[in-house]
Every structure is written in C-alpha cells, then in structure tokens.
C-alpha cells in the first residue's frame, strides 16, 4: 500500500502557486463581476435617468388611476341623480293620468 500512500501524498500535498496566480485570479474575478451585473457597467447618469423615468411613469400611472376613479364617481353620481329624477317624472306622469 506504500505506492498508494505516496500517490495520495503527492496529489494532496501543498503546492506553491505560480507567481502570476494572484494577478490572474483578480483579473478573472473582475471580468466575472462585470458579466454578472451588467448594470454596474452603465454610467451613473444613465441609471439616474432610468430611475427618473420609472418614478415619472409610476406617478403618471397613479394619476391616471386617480382620474379614472374620479370619473367613475362622477358617472355613478349622475346615474343615481338620473334615476331619482326619472322616478319623479314617472310619479308625476302617473298623477296626470
């Protein structure tokens, strides 16, 4: 079994990395982070502009929603008023006949 122990010792033994290993590792890590988060590569002004656009869009959407709700309220109010006036008309017609 000596040969096996020798093989294992050789395979698992501590080895010194090559002198340029650290530089290559840092370079590779840098490349990977850029690839993983492409947004980080965007200029800051572009990110700010995107944020402004999103906020403006959300504001406009909310305003539109509020307007539609107000419109629905107006239409509901007119429907109720119209129904009541119509009932008055019907009752008065009944009186005439």
């Amino acid at each position: 079994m000596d040969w096996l122990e020798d093989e294992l010792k050789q395979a698992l033994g501590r080895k010194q990395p090559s002198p340029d290993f650290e530089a290559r590792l840092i370079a590779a890590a840098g490349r990977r982070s850029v690839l993983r988060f492409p947004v980080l590569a965007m200029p800051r002004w572009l990110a700010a502009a995107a944020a402004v656009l999103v906020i403006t869009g959300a504001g406009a959407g909310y305003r539109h929603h509020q307007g539609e709700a107000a419109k629905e309220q107006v239409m509901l109010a007119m429907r109720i008023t119209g129904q009541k006036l119509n009932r008055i008309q019907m009752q008065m017609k009944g009186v005439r006949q």
Partner: protein
Amino acid sequence: MKLTRTLVLTWATACALCTILWAQQFQFNLDHLAAKASDSVDVSLNSGMLQFAGKFLDGKDPDEAQVKKLISRLEGIYIKSFEFKEEGVWSQADLDRVRNQLKAPEWSRIVGTTSAEDKETLEVHVRNQNGKVTGVAILATGPKEFTVANIVGAVDLDSLADLGGHFGLPSMEKGTEPQKKKK
C-alpha cells in the same frame, strides 16, 4: 407645548370641517345609517376633483360628453345613498333633520312626490342666491332606501332634467308642475 399642539390640531380640524361644510350646502348627518345598510354609496367630489374627472371623460361618448358639459359649471357633487335589507331602519327624524335645513328663503322645493303605494318620497329643492340657482338637493326615500344628494354650483335645471334621458332612462319633461302629490 402640549397646549399649543392641541390648539393647532383643533384649529386644523375646524378648518377642515369648515371647508367641507362650505363646499356642501347642508349637512347629511347620516353616518349612523352606514353601518346598518346592506349597500351604501358615498360620493364626495369637490370642484377640483370634478375638473380632474372631467379630463378623463370622453367627449366622443354621448353620455360622457353630456356629463362633461354639465360638471363644467358645478362646484361639487355630494351623495349618500343607503339600501337596507329590512324596512324601518331609517326614521322620519333622519329625513326631517335633512329637510329642516332646506328652508326658505335660500331653498325652495320645486318638486315633491309621495307615493302611498310604494311608500316612496321624492323631493327636489333648489337653492337660489341673487336670482341664480346655486345648488340642488334631492331627497329620495323608500321603505328600504335613503338617498340624499347635493349638487353644488350653477346648476342648469334643463341639463339636470336631461340627465333622465341618459343611462338608458327616458328624458324628464321640462316645465313640470311643482308640488304635485299623490296620496
């Protein structure tokens, strides 16, 4: 410090109440009915909200165009409408409390109908200031219903009557005789 805060809060509340009362021409005092109602509608639109809503009304749609024209001269629409599952939920005192505010010389009742058969009461009151109509009040009650509406502003009665011709309802005749009662 605490007193100042209380005073500021009281003042703010009073201002808010004044704004509501100023916008609305009479008090409804019907909040106690809301809890007992099976269906309730509460519309409260001031001048700003009406103008805002007007921008979203489609001028090409006949109904919406008519409403848009009508609300352009209004300063507010306030409606409270309740429907109940049982009879006798609202009392005569509730109606009287509203009706007692609609007194001469400011207010005059132009139409009032009572149906003994359906136990329904319908009234239209108009508010006049310097010979101009500045508001309309509509009271509609039935055994299981209580509706009060206040339309504030230079209400064109012809246009208001035309409302009856919208939403699939027949048009209300103009020049109807006031104060007709059916008993």
